[in-house]
């Protein structure tokens, strides 16, 4: 799965409006995008809905991918923007509900997982801010370079590094990570 093949598929999808070529790109990257959004949203169903929206947005903006940097980096940028937009929308919705007299607990419901399904990773992610979570997931789960993360989040590389450093420190201070195993 090389970036050169991705670029060829993008060119095919853009020049001929070829939905099949874009379908191949989705097949290649859906797992990483869905995993990224699952870790960010904390709810698989919501994450999959966001992933669908993300690929629809990616289709609309595909012509803007210049080939500079990896395609997955560009796709995760679209995914992160989609996530932030949906978050803003749900916040606005919660505010409307609140002003109408309803209890706005949508957010806590969205992120609530059954106690037996909470993993060490969920506990780690819980101590991080949204931005730190996104950057840590891009770095450690998706294997993006600091430069790619910078492109995806519109941040300078130096800021990305300091966010990662801060995230690691938070995890280190909250947990003795040497005692934890993956699960």
């Amino acid at each position, binding site marked *: 799965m090389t970036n050169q093949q991705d670029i060829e598929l993008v060119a095919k999808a853009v020049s001929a409006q070829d*939905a*099949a070529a874009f*379908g191949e790109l989705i097949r290649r990257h859906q797992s990483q995008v869905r995993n990224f959004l*699952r870790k960010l949203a904390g709810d698989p169903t919501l994450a999959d809905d966001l992933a*669908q929206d993300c690929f629809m947005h990616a*289709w609309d903006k595909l012509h803007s991918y210049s080939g500079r940097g990896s395609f997955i980096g560009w796709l995760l940028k679209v995914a992160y923007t989609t996530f932030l937009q949906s978050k803003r929308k749900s916040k606005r919705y919660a505010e409307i509900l609140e002003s109408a007299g309803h209890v706005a607990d949508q957010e806590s419901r969205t992120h609530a997982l059954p106690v037996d399904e909470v993993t060490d*990773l969920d506990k*780690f992610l819980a101590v991080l801010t949204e931005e730190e979570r996104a950057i840590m997931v891009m770095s450690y*789960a998706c294997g993006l370079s600091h430069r790619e993360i910078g492109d995806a989040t519109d941040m300078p590389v130096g800021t990305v590094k300091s966010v990662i450093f801060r995230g690691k420190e938070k995890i280190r201070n909250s947990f003795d*990570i040497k005692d934890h195993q993956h699960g």
Partner: protein
Amino acid sequence: MTSKIINMAERIKDAEDRLLESMFESLPVADDGFSVKVVGKIRRRLWLRRLTLPVAASIGGVIAFKPLASLVSTLASFTSFVPNEYVNTAASSLPQLQMLIMGAMLLAVCLLGLRTLED
């Protein structure tokens, strides 16, 4: 050179980085029809876009036909101000104005339809 050094420095991972990587690692998510679903949505959207223009043009043509025809006939009445020798020439060169407009509209719709089929 500097960027190479930065890249190399990024690749040097300590034990903590490797541990975090193993913790953040997750099993690949099975496609399970996800890509087919998204591609289906995109195809529907493409069709919708292709159909919108010809349908809008046809509806616009139907709606605009009557007022356009009356406008043309009103404009034609202004020919009374034009000297007779000129009016006779114009009337003989445009005998069925309504048919001409209808033909132009049909031609436009056909061209749009052909373009859609070609796409």
